[in-house]
Each structure stands twice: as structure tokens, then as C-alpha cells.
């Protein structure tokens, strides 16, 4: 009964979506307020029905209803409750339902909190968003229905893949989807602006919070995925330039560019046409990411061809929305009026440069990801594009961008003074040079490590420079500094934090890749192995039974310069249901660095293969992402986004926004 309810609720959501995708739009074109008013209640109703559908599926999983095919395939009655819950989206069908749930959440949020958006724009936005929703409801119902029953209910499920039985699954996919799907709002706003043929600074102000929310979630989602892979997979890697990772990274790069260009549009009414294009591209990349991951095209072109139904369906959605949006753009964008002028050396100029580089890096990742597929499809030649390619192409581009980051926020709008800004950055630059020298002298390390450290320092110190200057730290008396700091717009704090976070992540990457050490050895009880200042002693093994697995644990005593600092217990779990083993690495945190021990095979004579890593500064990689997201949150709480822009009636009589001081 419950799965059928869920199924039926999803069908109803589709029906509502169809209404929402047409009626309000017609109302907006004809100026009929009653029809426009349909948008908000239908968006809320759509959310309610998808939520019912999702809750039904959750109920099936939590109660282990194995008569439902997806529950049978991905769950087990002995799993802990948390994993029963998270296994809802640990598979294709359930994760698609989560996708549309989040889509409807965003629609409902716009309906509920978008009261300051003019009615026709709001109606159009919700309509456009509903087109996307309708397409994906049809996709789920036609090809990926999670509620299909088995004729004979099996007694026990096949268990969730052990690697997914982790807290990471509770956080990573929902966050990632909040990011992906959140960009659908920016997309809907862009399409609505094209349909209306009108766009202004107020539009940018309405779009920015939604883009920010999506960006924050995507940042955290990617970081969480990376961290999860790091601790769970047993060999300490955190990024691999794999197509699936790239699929989430491309929207992030485009979304970051969008945040910056929307800023120019909001403050200066410039870059309108470009911002619209970026909003379209960002969501398009989210859709492409969904296509890449879902269709199986990544495994090989042939895997896609052998089971083409789902893939073709998503491809059709892709072509329809991306093609349609770009066609609409080509037709309507030339009609949009261009805004404010600015000199090349200015805040706007810096943000344009930021966009140029972010778009180029995004394009590089795009080509690197899809070129092998295209080449194979066209010429049947198979090539591989892996991490070394991206190190050589993405790396240099991003380094140039990093060096430019500190300049942007210090430049004035309209016409900036590069020389002055360079002088103001002298301290940051000096710090970077000191960092480089220290590394060179103390470690005698290769150029790469020193340069990386220098750039990271420059980014962090440069972002701090802006705050220091604006609060007059070290120049003004302390109470005044505090008053200025409090009075500074939140968005200024947000910018600084986001940029500092970027520098912190870079620092972590440099530390982990340049100073890391590893030992791969085969050990027996009593053996000792040294890595840097640390000694690891194999003390003994033990085994125990978990709820749905058996576990072998090895105890290591860790000494630093002869002094005992703790014990590390890496384990290996065997899951009988799927006949699989997983490694649970032992991690010891020392400041922001980590020691990492994971187990390999146990040989017949009782020796255990062990991998030991020293990973300096590694935690900074994810800490930096959290700081970036925090910066985004600060920016989101800025007064001008909360208050919103003046309504168009007032806007005609000179918008107040134009009178606010530039930040």
C-alpha cells in the first residue's frame, strides 16, 4: 500500500508540475494576475506530493519492505537504521527521487520566500523550473521507478554496498544535489529574463542568494565527497580527476564564475548578457553531470549503447533544455540593453578576468572529460585522459587565477589604480616571499612546493589585507577598528573569508602533495617501521563481529621521537552478504596533519601488508572548503540580500539600489 501511495503521489506531482509549467506562464504573458497566482500554490503542492512520495520510499527502506525491488536490491534487515535510511539514495532510482525532491524544495522556497519578486517574473521563474521538474518526473516514472514491486517478496535483501555504509552517504549526495539542483533557480531566472526581455540590477539581486545557496551546498558536497573517499577507501587519495568528479567540479567552476559576474551586474548593470549565459551554462553543466553519471556513458560508449533507454532519455532532456535555452538566448539576448561602462583596470575588469579564467578552466575540464568519449565515438580510437593531463592544463591556469585573486577586492569600481593596489599588497607579497625562502632554506625542497606555499600565503594574506585596510587595523584606535569591523558589510567579510578559504585549501593541497610521505611494508607482530619522526610498532591483531560484518583489527603503537603518542587501529571488514571486504583506515590527527594507516592483504604466513602515510596539512584541504562555504554564508546574510530590491513600481522612480555605496 505504501509504495503505491508513493507512486501515486509522484504521478500527482507530475500533473501539478504540468499545470505549473503552463498556466502561470500564460498568465505572465497576458498580465492575468489570477493565473500568475497559480504558480506559488502549485509549487508548494508539488513539493508536498514529492515529499509524500519520498517519505513513502523512506518508509519502505526503514521497514525493510523487500517486496519493493529497489529495497530488495539495496538494503538488508540487519543494517543499522542510519544506513537503512541513507540507502534510499544509495542507488539510481532513489537518488533520482532525491533529485526531484530537492528540485521541488527549491521551487517551494521561491514560492514561499520570493515575495519581493515582481509577480510576472516570479510566475515565469516557477513555470520554467516546473518544466525541468516535469521532465524529470516523467523520466523517473518511465525509466527509473523506485516503487516497482516484486511478484514474490524475498525474505532478505541484498544489502547496501559496504563502501556506501558510511556516514558520508548521509551527507555527500544530498549536499551535492542541493548544489546541482539549486542552480536550476538561477537557470529559471535567466530563462524568465529572456522571455520577459528585460533584465536589470534588481534581477541580479534576486538571483544572487539562490546562486549562493547552491554554491555553498556544492562546495560542501564536493569537499565532503573528497573527504569521504580519503578516509574510507584506504589509500589516502582525495582527488583523481575522474569524469564523475569532474562532473561535479564543472558546475562548481561555472557557478563560481556566475557568483562573480552577477556581482558586477548587481553593482554596475554591466555583463548582463554574459551573466545570463553563465546561468544557463551552469545548470546545463549540472544536467550534463547528471547525464554523464547516470547514463553509463563514462564506463564506455558501448555500455551506454547496450542499455540505452535511461541514457537516451536523459540525453533528450539535456538536448531539450540546453538546446532550447541557448536558442532562446541567441534570439533574445541581443535585445537586452548593455549597462555601465568601466575601465579595464577596475573591480569589474578584475571580475571579468576572474570569469575568463574560471570559464577557461571549466572548459578545460569539460574537454578533458569528454574528448576521449567524442574521439572514440567518431574514430573508434581509444585514448585516456587522466590526472597528468589536468595537472598540466588546469594547474597553470588556476595558478594564474590564484595570483590575481588578491587584487580583485582591492580595486575600485569603474576605474582602479593597479599601482596603488600593488603597493597595498606589498605586505602580503612580502609574507609570501618569506614563506618561499623559509621553505627553500629549511627544506631544500623543489620549486613547486615553495611556489605553491608562496601563492597560498599570498591569497590568504591578500584577502586579509582588504579587511585590515577597511577596518584600519594597526592605524586606528582599537574601539574604532571594532566599530568599523561590525559596520563592514557582511558581503565584504564573505568575500574575504571565501578567498581565505581558497588559500587554505591550496595550502593543504601543497602540503599533502609536496611534503607527504608513505611506507608500504609487510609486517608481522612485533615489527617496527619508521616514517619521518614517527615509529609504528605492530602490537597485535584481534577480530570481532559487527552488526552485518566481521572485522580484523591490527593495533599499532605510534611513537614520535621515541615518545609514545598513541595507538592506531586500522581494520578490515568482511561483509558476508555481498562477499566483499572494506578497509577502515586508522587516522591520527596531529594539528591539521594526519597519520594514516590502512591494511592490505593478509598473507598465508600471517604477515599483513600495511600502508602508512604521513599527510602534512591535509585537513586544510577540507577546512578551506568549509571556510569558503562560511564566507558564502556571510555573504548570504548581507543586509541587501535580505531586504531585497525595490519593487518595479518604485524602481521606475529611480531605484534606491543605485544610491547605495559601492562596496
Amino acid at each position, binding site marked *: 500500500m505504501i509504495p503505491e501511495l508513493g507512486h501515486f503521489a509522484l504521478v500527482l506531482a507530475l500533473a501539478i508540475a504540468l499545470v505549473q509549467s503552463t498556466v502561470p506562464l500564460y498568465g505572465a504573458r497576458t498580465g492575468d494576475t489570477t493565473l500568475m497566482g497559480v504558480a506559488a500554490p502549485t509549487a508548494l503542492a508539488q513539493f508536498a506530493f514529492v515529499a509524500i512520495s519520498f517519505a513513502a520510499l523512506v518508509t519502505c527502506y526503514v521497514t525493510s519492505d523487500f517486496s519493493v525491488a529497489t529495497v530488495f536490491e539495496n538494503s538488508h534487515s540487519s543494517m543499522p537504521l542510519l544506513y537503512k535510511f541513507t540507502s534510499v539514495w544509495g542507488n539510481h532510482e532513489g537518488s533520482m527521487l532525491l533529485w526531484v525532491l530537492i528540485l521541488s524544495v527549491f521551487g517551494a522556497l521561491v514560492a514561499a520566500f520570493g515575495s519581493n519578486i515582481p509577480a510576472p517574473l516570479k510566475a515565469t521563474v516557477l513555470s520554467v523550473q516546473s518544466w525541468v521538474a516535469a521532465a524529470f518526473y516523467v523520466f523517473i516514472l518511465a525509466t527509473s521507478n523506485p516503487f516497482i514491486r516484486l511478484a514474490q517478496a524475498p525474505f532478505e535483501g541484498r544489502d547496501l554496498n559496504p563502501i556506501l555504509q558510511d556516514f558520508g552517504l548521509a551527507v555527500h549526495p544530498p549536499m551535492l544535489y542541493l548544489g546541482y539542483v539549486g542552480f536550476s533557480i538561477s537557470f529559471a531566472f535567466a530563462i524568465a529574463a529572456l522571455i520577459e526581455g528585460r533584465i536589470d540590477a534588481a534581477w541580479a539581486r534576486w538571483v544572487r542568494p539562490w546562486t549562493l545557496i547552491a554554491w555553498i551546498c556544492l562546495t560542501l558536497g564536493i569537499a565532503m565527497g573528497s573527504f569521504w573517499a580519503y578516509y574510507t577507501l584506504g*589509500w589516502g587519495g582525495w582527488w583523481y580527476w575522474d569524469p564523475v*568528479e569532474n562532473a561535479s567540479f564543472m558546475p562548481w567552476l561555472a557557478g563560481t564564475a556566475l557568483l562573480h559576474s552577477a556581482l558586477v551586474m548587481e553593482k554596475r548593470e554591466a555583463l548582463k548578457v554574459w551573466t545570463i549565459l553563465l546561468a544557463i551554462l551552469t545548470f546545463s553543466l549540472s544536467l550534463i553531470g547528471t547525464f554523464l*553519471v547516470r547514463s553509463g556513458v563514462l564506463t564506455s560508449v558501448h555500455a551506454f549503447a547496450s542499455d540505452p533507454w535511461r541514457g537516451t532519455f536523459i540525453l533528450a532532456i539535456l538536448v531539450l533544455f540546453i538546446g532550447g535555452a541557448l536558442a532562446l538566448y541567441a534570439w533574445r539576448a541581443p535585445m537586452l540593453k548593455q549597462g555601465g561602462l568601466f575601465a579595464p583596470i577596475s573591480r569589474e575588469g578584475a571580475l571579468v578576468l576572474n570569469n575568463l579564467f574560471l570559464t577557461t578552466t571549466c*572548459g578545460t575540464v569539460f574537454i578533458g572529460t569528454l574528448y576521449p568519449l567524442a574521439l572514440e565515438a567518431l574514430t573508434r580510437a581509444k585514448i585516456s585522459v587522466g590526472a597528468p593531463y589536468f595537472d598540466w592544463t588546469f594547474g597553470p591556469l588556476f595558478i594564474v587565477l590564484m595570483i590575481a585573486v588578491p587584487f580583485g577586492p582591492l580595486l575600485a569600481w569603474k576605474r582602479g589604480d593597479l599601482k596603488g593596489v600593488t603597493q597595498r599588497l606589498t605586505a602580503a607579497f612580502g609574507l609570501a616571499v618569506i614563506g618561499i625562502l623559509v621553505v627553500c632554506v629549511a627544506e631544500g625542497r623543489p620549486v613547486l612546493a615553495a611556489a605553491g606555499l608562496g601563492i597560498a600565503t599570498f591569497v590568504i594574506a591578500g584577502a586579509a589585507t582588504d579587511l585590515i585596510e577597511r577596518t584600519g587595523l594597526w592605524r586606528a584606535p582599537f574601539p574604532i577598528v571594532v566599530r568599523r569591523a561590525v559596520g563592514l558589510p557582511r558581503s565584504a567579510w564573505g568575500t574575504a573569508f571565501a578567498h581565505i578559504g581558497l588559500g587554505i585549501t591550496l595550502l593543504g593541497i601543497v602540503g599533502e602533495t609536496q611534503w607527504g610521505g608513505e611506507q608500504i611494508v609487510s609486517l608481522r607482530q612485533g615489527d617496527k617501521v619508521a616514517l619521518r619522526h614517527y615509529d609504528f610498532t605492530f602490537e597485535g591483531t584481534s577480530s570481532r563481529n559487527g552488526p552485518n560484518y566481521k572485522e580484523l583489527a591490527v593495533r599499532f603503537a605510534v611513537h614520535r621521537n621515541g615518545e609514545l603518542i598513541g595507538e592506531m587501529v586500522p581494520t578490515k571488514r568482511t561483509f558476508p552478504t555481498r562477499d566483499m571486504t572494506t578497509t577502515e583506515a586508522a587516522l591520527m590527527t596531529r594539528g591539521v596533519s594526519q597519520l594514516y594507516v590502512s591494511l592490505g592483504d593478509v598473507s598465508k604466513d600471517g604477515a599483513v601488508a600495511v600502508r602508512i602515510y604521513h599527510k602534512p596539512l591535509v585537513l586544510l584541504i577540507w577546512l578551506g572548503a568549509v571556510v569558503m562555504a562560511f564566507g558564502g554564508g556571510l555573504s548570504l546574510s548581507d543586509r541587501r540580500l535580505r531586504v531585497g530590491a525595490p519593487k518595479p513600481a518604485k524602481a521606475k522612480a529611480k531605484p534606491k539600489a543605485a544610491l547605495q555605496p559601492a562596496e
Partner: protein
Amino acid sequence: MRISTIIRLLFVAAALAAATPSFAVRPDEILPDPKLEARARVLSHELRCMVCQNQSIDDSDAPLAHDLRVLVRERLKAGDTDRQVLDFLVARYGEFVLLKPRFEWRTAPLWLAPIAILLIGAAVLGAAVHRRRRRRAARSDAPAPLSESEQARLAELTGAGRN
């Protein structure tokens, strides 16, 4: 085994078979000569495990990756240069084995794309700046003459009409 495997597992049930914990380089593979071993590790990062999804042989625990790692080390012990090792593997397994494709006509678009995107982007920007500057220059060179009504209003404001 990697993050992508996690994500892929989320989506592609068929990938489940590939999901075993990874333990790439094994202790017994490691060469006694640390210099040769370091070269082997660098080379391993650039070679693809052909039965895996986009994993280097250094990262993969597939039996094939193990064989390739041993092969790379054997070639190095026999005195091959890095280049010779790669050539040997390409001759045996094709270009597919290289994670960093060589620059040739087939891969030229791949390698040139980043710089091309950057240059095209910069050119479009440059053109936009140039166009705007010219437009502005044209405007400031010859400001539109005042219309008759404006002339009259100016005269009224400056009081010229009352003289």
C-alpha cells in the same frame, strides 16, 4: 578505488562487482633501489589500468595493474629509460594505456583547447573593450549639437534672452 567509485556505486548498480577495497602497490613489488622505485612510481601514475575506470596502475589493485607494475619495474631494472618503458607499453597496449595522451594530430585539439579557449576569450574581451572605447571616443569627439529647444532653454537659464 576512489571517490568516483563511491559516486558511481551510487548510480550504476553494474559497477558493484568492481568494488573491492584498494590496496595498490604491494610490499613485494617494491624495488630495492630507491631511485629506480621512485621512477617506477612516477611512471605508474601515468599509466592506466586498462580494466579499471580511469585509474592509474599505481592506484589500482586489479591483477592486471599488478602485472603492469611488475613489468614497468622489470624494464627499469633492465636499464630502459622512462621513455623506452612508455614506448614499450604503448607498443603492447596502444595509446589507451597513457593517462597523459601524447601530442599528435588526434590529440591536438585536446591539448590546444585550454589555450585556445583562453585566447579566444581574451580576443572577444579585447574586441569589446576596443569597440566601446571607439564608440566613446566618437561620442566625445563630436558631442551632439544642442537642439533648438535646448538652445532656447540654455539662453533662458543663462539669462541671455533678457539682455
